[in-house]
């Protein structure tokens, strides 16, 4: 085909006719089911574009899915009505040849790694009869220590996403891998003759040594080929900052456990970015609030938008992004560095001085962190301060950067586009990523791409970029392919597949192997060759090395060595930047759910309430209360942003703690081709994002459009109404009066107020849980881990809007505004709320059919199959932790989703109540195991899903009757209390109050 013809304009007619045929043959429900499965096919999108262009995005979003399920409720109803008729025959299908080591019914765990934002997170993947069903952290992995973040938990759903690409596409038409390799090899022959002149490769900058090695070897066959890398969430600022300070790029990572004072500059180091999970753990351990604790670290946060880190801060200052550098300068000068600093407003001034003093007082035990989104100058200032205070080497260390690339990402991509424009690119291989969607706006990458003679896109979904390429090759999921990846500190993990590619995907390694002329060489061979070479081992030794690496999930001794760096003698920060103009500033951030847009079609993440805002199924333009008042804006008002001739429409959401005059918008929404769920959700922030200023732009124009957009949040009321639900005290008060510090002004904190009831005796085990509010950072990992473990369905935006979300554990977020201070100084407390498993459970007494009763070990059991759905229990639950299937929410249709389900947990159907069970399936398995081994259960042997995933170990589960158990010990802490215990519910889930460590110089404004 000719260059002029763009595949986008040539929808796949053959496939469309096929679809028409299939649909016309179907009737009734069957029609919808068929339609749903078809909708997963890429050709279906084309069909939609053809049939009703305007409808296309709105045709099969989440709500419609629910609509289908609704209709199917009828058939379920019939099943129920026929209750007296006998069970239908069921087939039982064994293996023909059983694989080795597989015990039917017993799960197995495999170590692997998931890569995000250029760094790997070590994981253990639970596999049931060959189906990966759940992801846990790998305790041996430095970035995980057994925990994961929410995104890693959701990866399992991405694996089974029915909207994943199912086959190679040539110009949008279904084609085969061999056809692709055939066409590609021809071109490669020609290119090889030209020494690779005209061959360009754009990869997504993941941290795989083997991939890097392959790319390096490319020069042997194609000396003149060019390799570029683009990922929208890059470390360009960090890199520039390091070069500014040290004259070279370095990787920087922190030892928060050693830091007593931390100053975070526009840095969400607990919430996102490489190592966040590990940093959260270290940080929490640096501030364990326990009786008799000697001390507690103190976090100063300076940021433009309220992040999880800011929410954890003991002292927080909201500044516009452009003001952060000035603040950093002020701190530096206060520390006696020869840096020019602008004048700050009164509070910022005091804040800077206080922070500086604190850092000065803790030389070598302090730490200044500049965030991924902070300007290079801020990074350089942070480096300087750390260097001068002797923190470098103590609380942080420098290594070689994970990626040794010639250029920063933005520059790299610009170079590629320039090549293309200059017609220097004949063949472009895009390995992963989605540049047509997330490239800097000024490049018009999509436009440029369309002019490349031959373009190939390797990706998991048929996305915006695939639509522009001649060839789309389905990419294998990390859980489907061999590979390797490096953690933030350089440690390498061998990525091993848990399952053969569901939809015949290929990994970048395989595609590159083909490009390198190694034919159909498997990623496995490539990997082993590379590591045989790297390890210098052979034969049995190598096999042992290999087995250990696979088993442990880490390759021993691959952590990046520290490097000695010194400040440039010529380092000069020059004049302080002009103070911000009156105009608005727009800060751009990667999203907690979609990240850079890659997870847009992940229903779990879309329905996971975003940190702080608790919004679902949307991104919104965050705006401070005062600014909103000035602009007469309310939640949901759609505004138009304009900057340098670029425009963007977004609904606003008012957030306290947002720096006034600053707007924040998260990346990763407004996808045009993300699949049935993600397409058209939210607004595309990339429209205003340039390579020059990737993280914030100044002088943004804001115009009200008068339109409204419904934004849905799971928490409609922001304050605790002085009910001392999530209790907070200062560390000093706690030390002075451990018991009194967290006592509420009214109500009681005693767990079991007197009762007329004799109370049930609990000999043997008595399960309980303690949640340490002081450790909880509100990262949502527990919510989604619970969702994965317990087959919790998603319900869609509309249902959430109606208060019907299904999460078994939720995180309540309460704002507290210190008396007489401005909105920016709001503080936040997070409170995870699972079922309390009350000993005097109000829900049980009112159930007319006994569908919820108590177990002999004190579990509040919910028996789905007995439940008729009166919802009385939910009304009577003071904690409102019960969830009801108002519709048949669980997807009983989509085959691939069935594979993900945990076989040990019932999939609930329409009309039944459900709630947290303390992961009773895990309790039972552990008990049975212990019984079989004829030994008592050990403390810590049973780990609930939420506990396992928690990065800060805020959740502890165990036997409260066992004096020695961790949970029993925590229940003896002075600041231990039961939520609403004064109602006499005797909750088994209890809390440790949150402790703040404010700076005396700042507190009491």
């Amino acid at each position, binding site marked *: 085909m000719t260059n002029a013809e763009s595949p986008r304009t040539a929808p796949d007619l053959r496939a469309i006719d096929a679809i028409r045929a299939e649909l016309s043959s179907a009737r009734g429900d069957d029609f919808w089911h068929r339609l749903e499965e078809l909708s997963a096919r890429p050709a279906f999108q084309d069909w939609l574009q053809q049939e009703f262009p305007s409808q296309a995005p709105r045709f099969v979003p989440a709500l419609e899915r629910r609509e289908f399920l609704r209709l199917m409720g009828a058939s379920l109803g019939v099943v129920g009505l026929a209750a007296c008729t*006998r069970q239908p025959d069921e087939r039982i299908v064994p*293996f023909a*040849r059983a694989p080795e080591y597989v015990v039917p*019914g017993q799960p197995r765990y495999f170590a692997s790694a998931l890569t995000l934002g250029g760094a790997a997170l070590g994981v253990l993947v639970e596999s049931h009869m060959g189906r990966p069903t759940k992801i846990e952290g790998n305790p041996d992995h430095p970035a995980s220590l057994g925990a994961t973040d929410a995104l890693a938990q959701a990866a399992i759903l991405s694996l089974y996403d029915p909207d994943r690409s199912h086959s190679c596409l040539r110009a949008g038409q279904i084609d085969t891998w061999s056809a692709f390799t055939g066409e590609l090899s021809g071109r490669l022959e020609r290119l090889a003759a030209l020494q690779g002149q005209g061959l360009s490769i754009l990869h997504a900058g993941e941290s795989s040594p083997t991939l890097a090695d392959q790319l390096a070897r490319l020069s042997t066959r194609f000396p003149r080929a060019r390799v570029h890398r683009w990922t929208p969430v890059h470390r360009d600022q960090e890199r520039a900052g390091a070069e500014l300070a040290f004259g070279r790029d370095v990787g920087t990572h922190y030892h928060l456990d050693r830091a007593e004072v931390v100053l975070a500059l526009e840095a969400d180091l607990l919430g996102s970015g490489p190592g966040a999970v590990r940093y959260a753990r270290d940080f929490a351990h640096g501030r364990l609030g326990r009786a008799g604790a000697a001390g507690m670290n103190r976090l100063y946060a300076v940021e433009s938008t309220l992040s999880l880190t800011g929410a954890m801060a003991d002292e927080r200052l909201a500044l516009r992004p452009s003001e952060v550098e000035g603040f950093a300068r002020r701190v530096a000068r206060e520390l006696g560095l020869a840096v020019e600093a602008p004048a700050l407003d009164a509070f910022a001034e005091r804040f800077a001085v206080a922070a500086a003093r604190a850092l000065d007082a803790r030389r070598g035990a302090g730490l200044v962190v500049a965030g991924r989104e902070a300007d290079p100058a801020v990074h350089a200032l942070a480096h300087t301060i750390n260097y001068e205070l002797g923190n470098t080497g103590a609380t942080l260390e420098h290594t070689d950067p994970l990626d040794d690339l010639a250029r920063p990402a933005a520059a790299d991509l610009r170079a590629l586009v320039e090549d293309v424009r200059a017609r220097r690119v004949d063949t472009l291989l895009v390995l992963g990523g989605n540049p047509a969607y997330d490239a800097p706006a000024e490049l018009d990458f999509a436009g440029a791409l369309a002019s490349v003679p031959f373009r190939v896109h390797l990706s998991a979904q048929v996305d915006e970029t695939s639509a522009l390429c001649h060839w789309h090759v389905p990419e294998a999921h990390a859980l489907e392919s061999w590979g390797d990846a490096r953690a933030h500190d350089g440690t390498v993990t061998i990525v091993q597949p848990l399952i053969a590619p569901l939809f015949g995907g290929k990994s970048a390694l395989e595609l590159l192997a083909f490009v390198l002329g190694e034919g159909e060489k498997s990623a496995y061979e490539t990997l082993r060759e590379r590591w045989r070479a790297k390890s210098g081992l052979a034969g049995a030794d190598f096999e042992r090395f290999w087995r250990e690496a696979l088993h442990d999930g880490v390759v021993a001794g691959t952590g990046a060595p520290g490097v000695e760096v010194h400040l440039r003698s010529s380092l000069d920060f020059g004049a302080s930047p002009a103070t911000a103009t009156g105009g608005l500033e727009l800060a751009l951030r990667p999203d907690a759910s979609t990240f850079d847009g890659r997870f847009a079609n992940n229903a779990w993440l879309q329905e996971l309430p975003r940190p702080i805002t608790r919004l679902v199924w949307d991104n919104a333009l965050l705006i401070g209360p005062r600014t909103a008042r000035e602009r007469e804006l309310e939640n949901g008002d759609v505004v138009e942003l304009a900057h340098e001739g670029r425009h963007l429409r977004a609904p606003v959401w008012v957030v306290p703690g947002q720096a006034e005059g600053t707007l924040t918008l998260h990346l990763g929404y407004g996808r045009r081709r993300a699949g049935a769920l993600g397409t058209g959700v939210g607004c595309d922030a990339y429209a205003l994002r340039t390579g020059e200023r990737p993280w914030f732009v100044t002088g943004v124009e804001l115009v009200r459009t008068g339109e409204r957009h419904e934004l849905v949040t799971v928490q409609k009321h922001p304050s605790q109404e002085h009910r001392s639900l999530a209790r907070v005290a200062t560390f000093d008060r706690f030390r002075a009066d451990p018991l009194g510090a967290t006592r509420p002004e009214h109500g009681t904190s005693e767990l079991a107020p007197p009762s007329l009831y004799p109370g049930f005796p609990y000999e043997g085990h008595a399960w309980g849980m303690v949640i340490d509010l002081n450790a909880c950072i509100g990262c949502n990992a527990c919510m989604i881990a619970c969702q994965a473990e317990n087959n919790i369905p998603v319900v869609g935006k509309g249902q959430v809007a109606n208060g019907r979300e299904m999460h078994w554990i939720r995180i309540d977020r309460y704002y507290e505004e210190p008396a007489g201070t401005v909105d920016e100084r709001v503080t936040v407390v997070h409170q995870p709320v699972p079922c309390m498993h009350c000993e005097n459970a109000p829900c049980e007494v009112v159930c007319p059919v006994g569908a919820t009763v108590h177990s*002999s070990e004190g579990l509040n059991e919910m028996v789905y199959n007995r439940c008729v759905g009166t919802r009385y229990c939910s009304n009577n639950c003071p904690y409102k932790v019960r969830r009801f299937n108002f519709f048949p929410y669980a997807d009983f249709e989509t085959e691939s989703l069935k594979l993900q389900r945990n076989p040990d947990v*019932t999939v609930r159907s329409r009309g039944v109540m459900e709630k947290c069970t303390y992961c009773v*399936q895990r309790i039972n398995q552990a008990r*049975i195991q212990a*019984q079989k081994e004829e030994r008592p259960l050990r403390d810590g042997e049973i780990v609930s899903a939420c506990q396992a995933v928690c990065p800060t170990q805020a959740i502890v589960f165990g036997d409260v009757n066992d004096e020695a158990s961790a949970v029993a010990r925590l229940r003896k802490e002075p600041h231990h209390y039961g939520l609403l215990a004064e109602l006499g519910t005797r909750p088994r889930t209890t809390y440790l109050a949150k402790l703040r460590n404010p700076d005396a110089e700042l507190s009491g404004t």
Partner: protein
Amino acid sequence: MAQIFHPSFNTLSKVSIFGAVFFLGAAVWGWDMLLRSPYNTQVDVAREQPVPFSHKHHVAGLGIDCRFCHSSVEDSSFAGIPPTKTCMGCHSMVWKDAAMLAPVRESFQSDRPIPWTRVHDLPDFAYFDHSIHVKKGIGCTTCHGQVDEMPLTWRTATLNMDWCLDCHRDPAANVRPRARVFDVHWDARGLDDAERAALAASYDVKSRLDCSTCHR
């Protein structure tokens, strides 16, 4: 005024009032009987199978141990249905050409499993663990009946909830020495109540009546 009704109506009307009450009771009773009937529980109903596998022949005839085929019964919740390979282990030598076994050979060659009809099929919301029951000295035949006398397999227990509870309320009644768990000839009268109770105690049998024991 003339009579409206024939004298017989007097009896009729009296009977019908009593009848109504009686009919109601009968209906409820009938419903319950239906639920407990073999029609619903499929007790004693031999089930057609793709291959007419005879436990009688393999167990009584050849004396093959249960675990030879149901290999994971001691370590897993699921006792395990043998892969075709297990069948072929013998039937590649004996009866290698029997027409009856054609599906087995076909399955082995095509590597496509045999779709057996499930005889003991619990509802999806009920979770049962074979390994722990075996460990606590509950024998196969206690629930599965004398499979050694079944040419085609059938249920001997209703698998109704009250049937499960009967045993969980009095486990000692069904406990046998671990050595005899897989013994199809074990006779419950082999032990007296005291001995069974002692056995149950020594096995630390903790039969639980909590809902979450089986429903989660």
